[in-house]
């Protein structure tokens, strides 16, 4: 049992999520084996390591707070970790399940479950930062292997990385992709979305749907107006922003604004 004292102890916890962000650890290939030389996983259920109450140097948290149990667990995780890092859309903005925040969650629950009374759930799905102090956030749906690698690398140098908040458009231009808004009149969220995915959707000839969340200084209202100019009716404009990060304030403002418009139009 050679256990170097200097290894960083790590826990990976999951609240309400699809487990896709944890895969960024298991999908690393051989790099995972070298990662094991510098970190020791204390809790990582998907990899079979179980010690939920372990005190650790670093805890990653995936998933949103959508049940009373989530909330309780999150508080315990915070107390047991020196550094707490939220990973993925669910943890950073409430995720796709935060769409319920815009609706009457109870009615929705009745729509899916014949016995909603068996289900213990909160009315909303919220990001972890609304409940506890967070030391760093890795945005993305899903986060990437590169984000994890960069983060751990910076940490071993004794610092937290600079948050990546640049607009997707910048990365897209550097890749010399053809702009899908200009050439296809596609309602691309690139101008207001955080970089990090590698500008995948435009590269694939598709409009960005904002899975990395809002960028720095997002001029979402102006982009939404542009979508309207491209011929989208107001409900469609609202739907563009009501996808993966509907609870993120800049996107939520547009959902509420354009949804309201469509109701007035109908009236």
């Amino acid at each position: 049992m050679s256990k170097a004292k200097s290894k960083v102890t790590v826990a990976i916890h999951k609240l309400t999520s699809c487990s896709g962000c944890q895969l960024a650890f298991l999908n690393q290939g051989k790099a995972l084996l070298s990662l094991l030389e510098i970190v020791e996983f204390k809790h990582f259920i998907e990899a079979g390591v179980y010690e939920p109450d372990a005190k650790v140097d670093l805890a990653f948290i995936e998933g949103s707070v959508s049940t009373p149990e989530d909330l309780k667990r999150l508080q315990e995780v915070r107390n047991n970790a020196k550094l707490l890092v939220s990973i993925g859309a669910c943890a950073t903005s409430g995720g796709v399940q935060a769409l319920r925040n815009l609706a009457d969650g109870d009615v929705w629950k009745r729509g899916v479950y014949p016995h909603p009374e068996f289900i213990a759930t909160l009315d909303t799905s919220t990001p972890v930062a609304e409940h506890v102090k967070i030391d760093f956030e890795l945005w993305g749906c899903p986060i990437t292997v590169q984000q994890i690698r960069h983060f751990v690398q910076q940490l071993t140098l004794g610092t937290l990385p600079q948050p990546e908040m640049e607009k997707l458009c910048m990365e897209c231009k550097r890749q010399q992709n053809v702009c899908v808004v200009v050439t296809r009149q596609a309602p691309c969220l690139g101008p207001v979305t955080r970089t990090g995915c590698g500008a995948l959707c435009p590269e694939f000839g598709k409009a960005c749907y904002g899975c990395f969340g809002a960028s720095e200084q997002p001029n979402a209202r102006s982009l939404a107006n542009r979508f309207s100019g491209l011929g989208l009716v107001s409900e469609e404009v609202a739907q563009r922003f009501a996808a993966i990060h509907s609870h993120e304030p800049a996107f939520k403002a547009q959902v509420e604004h354009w949804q309201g418009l469509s109701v007035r139009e109908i009236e």
Partner: protein
Amino acid sequence: MTTKARKINLKVPFVTRLEGEGALELTTKGNDIDKLHLKIFEPPRLFESFLQGKSYKDVPDLSARICGICPMAYQLTSIQAMETLFGVQLPEHIIRLRRLMNLGEWLQSHALHIHFLAAPDIYGFDSALQMAGEYPEFLQRGMLIQEAGNSLMTLLGGRSVHPVGLQVGGFTKLPNAEKWLHCLTLVEHALPAAKQLVKWSSELELPDYSHDFLCVSLKGEKAFPINSGDIQISNGLVITPAQYPEHFKEHQTRHSTAFYSLLDGHDYLVGPLARMNNSFHLLHEDVKQVAKEYGLKFPNQNMHTSIQARALECFSALHESLGILQQGLPEGEANVAYDIKAGECHFCTEAPRGLIYHYYDLDDEGKVLKCSIIPPTSQNQARIEKDLHFSVKQFGLDKSDKELKYFCERIIRNYDPCISCSTHFLDFKRIQK
């Protein structure tokens, strides 16, 4: 027995090494099982509600988020359901590329399951991470296969978790030659590793608690089925996806938030072993030859051979992928045009861990009025409980809690339940009355 009923409440940690989290509660009375519940506490994410009102175009990107381990299965099932409704006729090369991407998803999921989740049981470790020091080659072999699978998904979808390339009518873009060749190299390297994996799986000393159960999978005509066809049941019944709701009914119980699905009132199996049992004869001759060489026999009723079914599917998937890649990068359009139509549609595909069923009712603008999504885990849930019931009794209730827990976990893991489309687990709880 005149002594007062004794109640022992034991709490044993999570059933770990599931993708997601689950838990088991076992209540025994003397030598009988009083109650046995696989508990799945799914924080409800209400997909079927929030998809209502969404455009059919947005459905694949949203439904993918049900599961990070088999996102493509959710995307493709919804896309193909809508293509059925719209009457989209796909050219051969698009069908071939979708199959290639599907094979990639099977590969990455199976490789993850075998090497990270199941192998520690076999080598007597708590986790794959602990195995890294002693069995690095074993894990590296797994990573080689996993990487080949991920590369195929990335080739056609940009990334392996929540890929972006699929759409109604085909793909948003066809891959380029450089990436195609990169995949070819990875698949070539992984193929001998997968053959070794089949050999390895054939040498395992697997427990045998064979018993009768129904196997449900897609029905293939010429090839091993993955993303098209009717549904076949091992009792001889064949139905179309549209007839699914007539035969398969879901119900909810107090102890679990995942639904239970029953086929005409019976539990049933979906997944790799169900596929092998129903369609072994459709595998490529080379694959059958490898199975024969290492003495793998399908059909069989031993759930513990699921790991062999997965290993053989890995070899088969790589073998077929290599064939597709060697044909060269297809030319032609990335997608075909279609007209939106209103109406109902049903479709089933084979996710890595079993059959997925999707149903949509769309209006004339292509907006979702109603939908239903039945993942493999809720289909297997009743079967897992039945299996546990049968096997645990055979194993012996006089065994220690530790032995029982380990035994039950291993049985549950055979099904590779993707409880992330569900849960927060609880814990293994045994109550002796």
